[in-house]
């Protein structure tokens, strides 16, 4: 559907404002499950717990770790539900 068709259907008369509203609606759709997904990878570093989340992240779908002993496949890992007792906290 074009922006013009959306404007005609909704009775909006400002193109710039409509584009902004479309961006807002797109944001709300993507933050609730969304229609598109992205993947980013980063190095796993020995002794490092903290990693950056992508700045453009809206909703996290999954986190995986590369299993180098099983054909270099990424396998989904589970989320910790409770605060862990970490014994090597630096």
């Amino acid at each position, binding site marked *: 559907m074009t922006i013009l068709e959306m404007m005609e259907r909704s009775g909006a008369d400002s193109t710039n404002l409509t584009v902004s509203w479309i961006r807002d609606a797109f944001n709300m759709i993507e933050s609730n499950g969304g229609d598109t997904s992205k993947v980013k990878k980063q190095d796993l570093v020995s002794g490092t717990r903290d990693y950056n989340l992508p700045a453009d992240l809206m909703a996290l779908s999954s986190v995986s770790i590369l*299993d180098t002993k099983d054909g270099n496949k990424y396998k989904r890992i589970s989320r910790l539900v409770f605060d862990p007792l970490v014994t090597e906290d630096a």
Partner: protein
Amino acid sequence: MSQDVNRDYFWRTRGNTLEVLKLKRSGSAVKNDGSLSPNRDELIYPDESVDDGVRVEYTAFVNPFVSADPNVLATGDTNETTWTNPDLTPVTSPTETTHVNLNRLLSMAVVSYIKAMVSELKGDLKAKEYYLREFWKRVSDAESNKRMVSMSFPTSPFAVR
């Protein structure tokens, strides 16, 4: 060399940070008096380095505006086996003829959202609430269309019809 990663690794978020922890399985230990101590499994920092070892999948604000209609096959709907999806070029400065990169139902949801915003500008908050409900209803309809799950319930013979 990482192995059994799906059993040994865990994650959680803290603000904008992703924490990755590894479960160190130690089992039970024999104490000096010969008895077994409780399970000593513990979470530790990752103890290995793997290039591109952490993969994050997420939703993002990806190409909301494109040059072609995303809901029409590029080759036309003429053949069952030879077909391709349209080549969508992102548009950074959208005009009125630019397409919104959403399916038809989500586009209708966006129309409801715009109606809600137009109503708010006019001061009609009741209409705004109505159109926002329509927006979320259409978003959830679009989501359930992908899930392919149907539920049916038997009707009780004593149900009031």
